[in-house]
Every structure is written in structure tokens, then in C-alpha cells.
């Protein structure tokens, strides 16, 4: 399991790097399109707004796993912080399990939709825009998040040795 944990963690780091690249691409594209359309010679690149939207969506989805890895999603600690440790662990394990299935299903659904688009095409693709790779990337991002919950569940159920000693 330790190797799997390392593998998933490095996967989430690679995914956030890819997200950063997509973000830079999105900013560059918006910049060029604005310069050409508003300040330039009035040329508008068709589909730019749609493309930048999907670039942003893929970038955000790819960063989800790493954000969870460093506990970057907003949560509140008003009540649970005062509960006995064993209750906290049970609660944490339960929520990890729920989220693992939730995001796993979502990743599956999104990937299925991307696959359908790839096979059948979409109205946007009629205008020369290929959107399914971005949707595949979104599916990958959500799958990465589900995998992070898998290792969190593992860590909650089987604590590290030092932590286990502390728990008695």
C-alpha cells in the first residue's frame, strides 16, 4: 500500500503540473483573442470563449486531487475537534468512503460522456472545436480525487506506527 500511496501522490503532483500548463495556455489564449478582437483589427477567433472555458474547467479538475492531498478544500472544525479521537477517526473514514465512491462515479460518468462525444461528435465539433479531450481530462482529475480519498481512507483505517502507538 505504501507504494500505491506514493504512486497516487506523485500522480496528483503531475496532474497539478498539467493543470498549471493548461492555465498558462488559457491565459495566453484569452490575451491573444482580446488583443486581436478589442484592440486589434477586429478579428474574433471563433470558439475562443468556449475553448477557454473548457481549458479552465480541465485545469481546475486536474488540480482537485493535489488540493485534497494538502487539505486545501474548505472545511470547518467547530464540533468534531472536540470529539474523542476514535469517534473522529470513524467519522473521517466514513466520509472518505462516501467521497471515494461519489467522485469515482462522477469520474466514470464524465469519462463516459467524453467517450460518447468522441464517437458521436458534438455541435461544437461541427465548428472545428474538439472538446472531448478536455472532458477526458476532467474525468482524469475527478478520478485522481477519488484515488486521494482511497489513500486517505487507508491512512485513517490503518494509522502509521507512531500514530498507532499514540492511540494505544
Amino acid at each position, binding site marked *: 500500500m505504501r507504494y500505491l500511496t506514493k504512486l497516487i501522490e506523485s500522480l496528483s503532483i503531475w496532474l497539478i503540473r498539467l493543470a*498549471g500548463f493548461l492555465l498558462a495556455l488559457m491565459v495566453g489564449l484569452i490575451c491573444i483573442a482580446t488583443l486581436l478582437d*478589442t484592440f486589434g483589427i477586429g478579428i474574433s477567433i471563433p470558439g475562443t470563449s468556449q475553448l477557454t*472555458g473548457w481549458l*479552465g474547467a480541465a485545469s481546475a479538475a486536474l488540480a482537485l486531487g493535489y488540493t485534497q492531498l494538502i487539505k486545501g478544500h474548505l472545511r470547518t472544525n467547530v464540533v468534531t475537534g472536540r470529539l474523542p479521537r476514535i469517534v473522529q477517526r470513524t467519522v473521517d473514514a466514513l*466520509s472518505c468512503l462516501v467521497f471515494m465512491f461519489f467522485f469515482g462515479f462522477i469520474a466514470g460518468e464524465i469519462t463516459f460522456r467524453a467517450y460518447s462525444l468522441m464517437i458521436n461528435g458534438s455541435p461544437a465539433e461541427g465548428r472545428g472545436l474538439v472538446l472531448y479531450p478536455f472532458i477526458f481530462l476532467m474525468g482524469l482529475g475527478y478520478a485522481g480525487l477519488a484515488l486521494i480519498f482511497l489513500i486517505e481512507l487507508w491512512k485513517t483505517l490503518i494509522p502509521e506506527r507512531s500514530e498507532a502507538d499514540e492511540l494505544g
Partner: protein
Amino acid sequence: MNSVETGVWGLTILGLAVFLFRMPISMALGVVGLGGIWCLSGPAKAMDVVTISILDTSSLNRMTAIPVFVLLGSVCFYSGLNKRFFDSAQKWLGHIRGGAAMAAVLSSAGYSSICSTGPAAAAAMGAAALPEMKQLKYPIFLSTSSVAGGTILGAILPPSLILLVIGLQSDQSIGRLFMGGLVPGLILLAMFVLIIPIGCQDQLGWSQVKPKVDRIDRILTMANWIELEIILIVLIMGLWFGRLTITETGTGAAVLVILLNVLFRTLSWKQFACSLMDTVRISSMIILLLVGVTIFSRFLGMTGLPQALVRLVTELRVPSWLILADIGIVLLLGGLVMDELACLLIAFPIFLPIITRLGYDPVWFSIVMVMVSKIGAFMPRSGSNMLVVAAVSRTASPLEVFHGMKLFFVPFILCLIAITVFPQVVLFLPSFIK
């Protein structure tokens, strides 16, 4: 159980998931929303609604404004704007008694309006301003609270990320929201700066002042915070004249700030890469929160709870200010126990239809509610900026910072009352936006 009751149960379970199960708020919203739709329309429809909500919400072109503005703040963070900003403000105010604390308020407010997260701004400004104020023998409660107090104003002063996200979620004009926050933000800033020499005369007795800087040098020092000047010019040009969208405005400002920092070698490639990583991390957190709110709102919409609330409020025949006060109390309590952004995003889909029905302006309501939810930032347990500044100072306890924050609490409440009683303070500038 009818559908409205299902909606009430959904809200109760959401509360349990967030507070008892300590679930991340965005994910709890998604899971409870899915469960609710499942109960009302079956599993196939529920999965369909959730997947479509995720794909549609996150790929909206308007959503690209979020990473763009976060990138802007992140680049400013890595380029060391915090230090330059404080040094510049010091040169203008350092020769006055209490001037360093006033400079800390001024620079913290300006910096946190650009920086995407309050605690990050508090950490950066604390690192820049606290050692200098320690050297000048400022009392620790004043030096720490002036940084923490200043960073609170970042939620109201444009380009505030909270206002941007609220605007995107509730489909309001971002330009009007930014302009709506400008006047109250500037009034608060002036009050926070002026309260220091007025309210701390006795405590400032031992503190030192800096020698007065020549006027030319002071004017030249404004080049130190050229990023903020660029952002303000681009924002005003883009939004006021209505030529650019909010994403284009943010991108223009971000690209100019990046180019300028690369040109002056204040931003290395490594720092740029780090700012990109931070941006995607923060943006993914915000976008997932918006996705969660969308799923939960669709569930609430299916239950008919918001409409039932509107009907109930209309039939109650109580004064509208009383309903507004009730909503304020809910948001105040919400701001005490959770992050104000999450609290506002959960509350807006429920309360905005009521407010619109009562005839209030959504821009005014948004600014008032952001300020109400920010009251939690003055409290010792919930004020994350205070805790961060205390940690950065290494010598101050959170209670000492809290003691200092009392100084800024009175002007904050006075300003909140003023803008509630006189909405024109907020609505004057937005009326000029095309």
C-alpha cells in the same frame, strides 16, 4: 414527506455533514445534493443532474475569471509586493506618531484586495510590517491588529475575490459589485487609519517615528507599487467603459503585472511556476465549491423550498428590515463557524430571491452581507487572519491581536450601519456602470 420537507431535511443533513462529519463544504454540498435529487427523482436522474452541473458550471466562460484574478494575486505575492507596498506607505506616513501602524493598515488593505486569500495576505503583510514596527517599539497588540484589520478590508475593496465569486454565482454584474464595494471600502480604510492616532494616543507614547522623507522621494516611491496602479487603471478602463469582460480585464491586468515583474526581474521563472501551481490549487477549491452550490441549489429548486420561503415571507406581513435583520443574523452566525465565502455561497441561493422580492438591490445586499459575514473575522476563535498574524509575529498571542482588533471593530460596525441605512453610499458608483 412532501418535497419542501425533503428540502428542510437536506439542509439539516448538510449542517450535520459539515459540522459533525467535518466534510469539506464543497463536497458535502455535492453529496447531499445528489442524495436529495436521488430521493426526489431517482438515481438515473440524480447522476445526470450532478454530472451536467459539474460540466456546465466549471466550463462556463465566466468562470475563467476566477483563475485569472487568483493568478494576479499570486504573482503579486511572489514578486514581493507586500514589502514594497509597506515601505512605500511608511515613507508617506512614517514621520507621524502611529504612522507605521497606519502604513500597515493601508498596505494590508491594498495588498489583500489583490491577494486571493485573507490568511495568505495576512501572513505576507505580517512578515513585511511586523519586524519594522517591532524595531520602532510599537505595542504588539497594535502592530499585529493593524495588519489583521487591514487585511479584512480586502473582502470589500476591488478586485475582491469574494465579490467576484458571489457575482459569478448569483449572476450579478461583477463591475457593479466592484464599484459598490469601493466607497464603503475606502470609508472603512480612512476610518481604520484615523482611529490609530485617535484611539491609541496613550499606548503610542514609547513608539518611535521615522524622519520625514522628501516630497519628491515620496512621489517616486509610488513606483514601488506599480502593480496596484496597473490593476486599478485596467479595472476602471475595462469595467467602467464596458469595453471588456471581467475575464478580459483580469487577464489584461495579470499579463501586464507578469511582464512588468519579469522585466524588472522581481519574478523568476521558478516563482512564476509556483504562482501557477498556487492559482490552480485555489481556483480548483473555489470552482468545486461553486459546483457543490450549483448541485445543492438544483436540489433545493426541485424541492420548491426557496419559493416556499418567498411565499412565507410575503404572507408574514412583517417589516422588510426585520427579514433583512434575520438574514443578517444567520450570516453572522455562519461567518462565525465557517469560512465567509462558503457561508455566503450557501446562503445566497436561498436568500437572494427573498431580497429581490422585497425590492432591495442585490448589489447593496451583497456588500452588506459580505461585511456582516466578516464580523466573524474580529472574533478570537473564528478570525483566521488574526490567528495567522499572531503565528507570524511569534511573540503575540491570538488574544493580544483580538485585544487590538477591538479598536477597528467600532468603525467597522458604524460603517455597516451607515451603508445599511443609506444604500446610496454603495449604489452611487454602480449606477454609472454601463
